């Protein structure tokens, strides 16, 4: 790389610190921009000045000769406020579908959910868990002991239900071939009667 102008050198250091996965040592910075440690120190001071202004939300921190850029701790309240807000107001269709399956089929395994939906449901399930609508509820006693998922008490409360029996009944579906939750384990299959988890479904 060619010789950098002082401003570009400052920018290069800032870019490195901005994207760094860990604090970067001053010697490494000097090596990267092909300058001596003294000039890097001067450039770092200028960066520090820039980030010290009241309108800046970040700061240059120095740990043991290594430098990193951080958001200013006095604004962490805003960051936390945002991370709560980040949740979209409405569930995505994929998450809503997954929630409905868990609500009516609980407790239910990831595999059973995916069998019904026909697509990978990892991210839908973690969204529901993050939002407190669904939680793990033990493990099924079958091969692999898969985790079971169920809705949370808050979920019921939110819908004004006292128990799962109060979920709206569904019209009868005559043939529901792949709906049998036991169908995944061929060994335990054959017992067609074992479908107690669904009140309101006949």
């Amino acid at each position: 790389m060619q010789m950098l102008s002082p401003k570009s050198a400052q920018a290069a250091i800032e870019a490195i610190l901005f994207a760094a996965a860990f604090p970067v040592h001053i010697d490494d910075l000097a090596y990267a921009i092909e300058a001596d440690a003294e000039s890097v120190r001067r450039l770092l001071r200028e960066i520090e000045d820039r980030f010290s202004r009241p309108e800046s939300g970040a700061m240059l921190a120095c740990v043991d000769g290594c430098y990193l850029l951080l958001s200013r701790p006095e604004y962490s309240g805003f960051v936390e406020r945002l991370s709560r807000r980040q949740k979209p107001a409405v569930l995505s269709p994929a998450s809503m579908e997954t929630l409905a399956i868990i609500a009516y089929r609980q407790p239910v395994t990831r595999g059973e959910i995916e069998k019904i939906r026909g697509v990978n449901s990892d991210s839908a399930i973690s969204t529901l868990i993050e939002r407190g609508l669904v939680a793990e509820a033990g493990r099924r006693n079958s091969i692999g002991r898969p985790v079971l998922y169920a809705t949370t008490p808050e979920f019921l409360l939110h819908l004004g239900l006292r128990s799962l029996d109060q979920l709206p009944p569904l019209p009868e579906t005559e043939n529901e071939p792949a709906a049998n939750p036991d169908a995944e384990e061929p060994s335990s299959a054959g017992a067609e009667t074992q479908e107690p988890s669904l009140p309101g479904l006949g």
Partner: protein
Amino acid sequence: MKVEAAGFSGPLDLLLSLIERRQIDICEVSIAQIADDYLERVLSLDWLDINEAAEFLVVAASLLYIKVRALLPAAGQQPDEACDDEGEAEGGEDDPAQALVARLIEYRRFRDAARALRPLEAMGLRAYRRLERALPKPGPTFMPPAGLTLQALASAYLQAMSSLPQEFEQAPTDEIPIAQQMVAILSGLARRGKLRLQDLFGTAASRGTVVASLLALLELTRRGRVNAEQPVPFGDIWVRAPESRRWEVGDADVEPEVSTGGN
């Protein structure tokens, strides 16, 4: 070698690159010439994934079918007419050459679009963002979404369940996978001589493919194209080609069904 490693993202990509290497307009391509090029390439690749191989062979079978049709005087249609009345439903329906050219043209748009996105990607990837770790994540907090009602829940459930039975109704009407699996089994036998029944199903992507493989095997057995034997009771079932017959790609047994799958 995996096909993608050979630089082709699929059979259409391979076919298109062969046509372009000859610097011929898509509409003027002689299917006969291209079919030979294509077969040579496909057969020279070392297939690891039998499903992937089947997809390439299905196109090979289509090409051969088109080639055979072009040689028969009764078939009438010249391949060059394809582009002139492409888009007209009547022609595109029953002329496989025309249908293939139309697919290639459509495919080429997206292949070219993907190429046009490359420089953007190169630029986009040069801008780094901060690492994720910084944001404090609140633990699970109850955050009910807007519009979560019992009604919405019930209807979401019904919709999710409604897709199930239809999937089963559809399966038997789809004959493509069976033809594909027939080709896949024959091509596997051509290379390895014999196959274990489990191996035919081992790599299957879905239950539908397993069923298609089984039906394909039964059909091939019925036609005397393969033999199945079980030397030991409850032991492995082996599938092999009968001594007298060597499989050739364009065999008429498989072709007509395969070509209907092209659309």
